[in-house]
């Protein structure tokens, strides 16, 4: 019985062929117009996009490791995001402060 159940499970696994995902993350580029808690609004060419920031979002500020605290209104950002429940959710954020 034990051997049979192992064989059955092996057969099931044998069909679990690895597959590669296709597609890519959305690239959201623009200037930060608002930061409302965990939601940041990015605007470019008159088009606004809201992006949710999550605990796993990684940060790079001016070429160095950063945090959400580095993000300010007016910053230029490049965000790689995935739509989750129809909300762009940031995987990583690269930002640059505007030149003074």
């Amino acid at each position, binding site marked *: *019985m034990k051997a049979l159940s192992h064989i059955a*499970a092996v057969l099931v696994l044998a069909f679990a062929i*690895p*597959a590669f995902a296709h597609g890519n993350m959305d690239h959201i*580029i623009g200037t930060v117009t608002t930061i409302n808690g965990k939601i940041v609004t990015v605007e*470019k060419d008159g088009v606004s996009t809201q992006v949710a920031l999550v605990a796993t979002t990684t940060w790079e500020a001016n070429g160095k490791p950063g945090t959400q605290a580095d993000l300010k209104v007016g910053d230029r950002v490049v965000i790689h995001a995935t739509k989750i429940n129809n909300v762009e959710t940031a995987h990583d954020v690269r930002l*640059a402060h505007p030149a003074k």
Partner: protein
Amino acid sequence: MVIRTRVAAFTAGIVAGVAVMATVIVLLGWSAFHNGFSARAEPSGLEARLAGAILRASVSDRDRALHHNMTTTPQMLSEGMEHYADHCANCHANNGSGDTMYGRGLNPRPPDLRLAATQSKSDGELYSIIQNGVRMSGMPAFGEPGGRDHGSWELVAFIRHLPALSPEEELQMQSMNPITPSEMKERQEEDDFLNGNATTTKGQPK
């Protein structure tokens, strides 16, 4: 009379066993046809346990006991990092989390290399997995058959370092990741935008 009772009990046991097996197979079949064989689905507990058992069984005791007999030096770590960023990070991610486009699409998912399930393996076990791969997973065999590969030992050393990887090192690894010409162009456009000299940056989500 006793013998008859035992035979009846034995037969009943066989019938019950076959019935249970048939039920399991029907349920698995129904699940497969109902849900499909999508790689997106999380592996069931049964699959996960079996995959773990297969992984453990795939490494011989001899390989498990292997040692590289070298002290881990900064140079060894540095070369391991470069090697890892180039060969492994597409699926395992620079930080070892497995949170990449390929990693998320694989079934079974690549393990989080920083966690105990990986870190508790012996050096020889990690080396053997890198050299020989893991069947029924996305992990290929990177080594030559029977070969002893210094590069794989460097990878083992770097995997040991992953739980302590600094944000600076993770950022450094991004420049070591393989990228296609179109990704390189895209990255250049993003850098240009961040540097304030954008000319052809894309707009909002693709």
